[in-house]
């Protein structure tokens, strides 16, 4: 069997195993999914209340509904959680066993992400379609081509957030506060990625900083694409994709460096 075929076969097996495990814990997975909905919904309620019957910086109440529904879905499909498991594995030494397997540990994590995100997507997208029947504010007015671009943007963002989260997890090679550092990062991400508010609500310099750094492109960019806000500005679409790809390359590069340096430091605790 050729190398590539063996590689994909391993992924196939991993996918089936992880899918089966997830189905055993499906109620937990559901609770986990629904719990993450609350924060965007609270933000939505606040902004709808703030805007009243008027509009703020170009957003009316129904614009906010579409925006935060987008945030809810995009954030759920792109958020990474590997930092907690990595931190525990490295601290307690169970990472050793994973290193001995004939498949790089990162593939287990990538596969886990694919499994859960596929599950979320299968549940959330039909739910959106159904709700859109009853709530006109949730209807999309973009063409099929743009929807294709949204899917690509979500995949790229998911990869970015995964690599960022994985590097935070690898910090456990040096410090036992990797999860605390990740919490700091998440708090800033919450702000600058557009999860609290569309970026046009912020002072201009904050919005500008969020656009340059890898924040806007992870959540607000796919959402803006989806809600049709970028329909008249094709250059903003290409800028967004260029940023996603540029940051992803940089992040993958730094991941390789951090991984190598970290492994040298690693001495398993308790064998």
């Amino acid at each position, binding site marked *: 069997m050729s190398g590539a075929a063996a590689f994909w076969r391993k992924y196939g097996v991993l996918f089936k195993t992880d899918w089966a495990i997830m189905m055993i814990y499906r109620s*937990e997975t559901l609770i986990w999914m629904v*719990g993450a*909905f609350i*924060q965007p919904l*609270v933000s939505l309620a*606040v902004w709808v*209340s703030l805007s009243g019957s008027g509009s703020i910086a170009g957003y009316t109440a129904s614009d906010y509904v579409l925006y935060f529904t987008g945030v809810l879905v995009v954030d759920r499909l792109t958020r990474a959680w590997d930092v907690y498991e990595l931190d525990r594995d490295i601290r307690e030494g169970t990472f050793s066993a994973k290193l001995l397997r004939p498949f790089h540990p990162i593939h287990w994590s990538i596969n886990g992400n694919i499994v859960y995100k596929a599950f979320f997507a299968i549940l959330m997208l039909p739910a959106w379609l159904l709700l859109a029947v009853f709530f006109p504010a949730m209807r999309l007015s973009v063409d099929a081509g743009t929807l294709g671009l949204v899917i690509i943007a979500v995949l790229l963002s998911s990869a970015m957030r995964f690599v960022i989260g994985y590097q935070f997890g690898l910090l456990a090679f040096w410090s036992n*506060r990797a999860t605390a550092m990740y919490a700091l990062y998440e708090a800033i991400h919450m702000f600058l990625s557009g999860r609290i508010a569309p970026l046009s609500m*912020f002072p201009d310099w904050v919005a500008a900083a969020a656009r340059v750094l890898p924040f806007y492109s992870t959540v607000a960019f796919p959402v803006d694409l989806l809600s049709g806000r970028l329909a008249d500005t094709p250059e903003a679409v290409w800028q967004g994709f260029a940023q996603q790809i540029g940051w992803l390359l940089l992040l993958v590069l730094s991941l390789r460096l951090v991984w190598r340096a970290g492994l040298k430091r690693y001495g398993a605790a308790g064998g």
Partner: protein
Amino acid sequence: MMRTYRLLRTFFQACLAEEFEYRANFAANIAMTLFSLGMSVLTVLLFFYRSESLGGWSFYEVLALLGIFNALHGFIELFLQPNMSRLVSHIRQGTLDFVLLKPVDSQFFVSFRHLVLWRAADIALGLGLTGFAVWRLDGPPSWSELLLFLLLLGAALAIIYSLWTGMMVMSFWAVKVDNLSFLFHSLFETSRYPVSVYKGALRLVLLYVLPIGLVTTVPAEAIVGRLDLANALGAIVLAALFLLGARWLWKQALRAYTSASS
């Protein structure tokens, strides 16, 4: 009563000794608390950057409420969260037997034995923020306002405690309740802002059915001097009912407890 106090003091001292084994951790945790409070104040600043009022509340009124939210969150993390996870393992491994054999009220023991003391910083900072906001609004509050505030804060604590006990009790039947505590934390987020932000039926649900919206809004109303008498009475009656309910549930649960196989 005296005995309860002495027991609480012993729990406190044991946990304090434990905490001071890890001093660097303690300092880092406090820094984390300051950071997250700073971020939530920034969020409120953002809301008021383009608007004058949030659900009829002014900037400092919302800050006062945010301080209460932070203090209640600290209370959950100090008392409730650490004990919850232990109760689950007590039940799974059958070690609840040892608790039941102690000459203490078992509900009291499993609720308050373990304290994460650095979370007191959340409570202090939260109440500090409330104090600052109230002072900026119109100077020091009157004695009657302060008294009413403390009473309603007590009611809020009783409601939160009862909800948690209700959740803990679930672990007698369904062992995995960590998910429920995650869900509670998520729902608790809704009380970060005045309940008047929410519309229609949702507001009523958050106020009286799942009274999570009530726990921050009502004490905040009292301290900023805009108290709705119906809400205040509602909070106190609900608190009493919830405490009774929690006690009843705990007794039911103990009756269902069969220990682990050993």
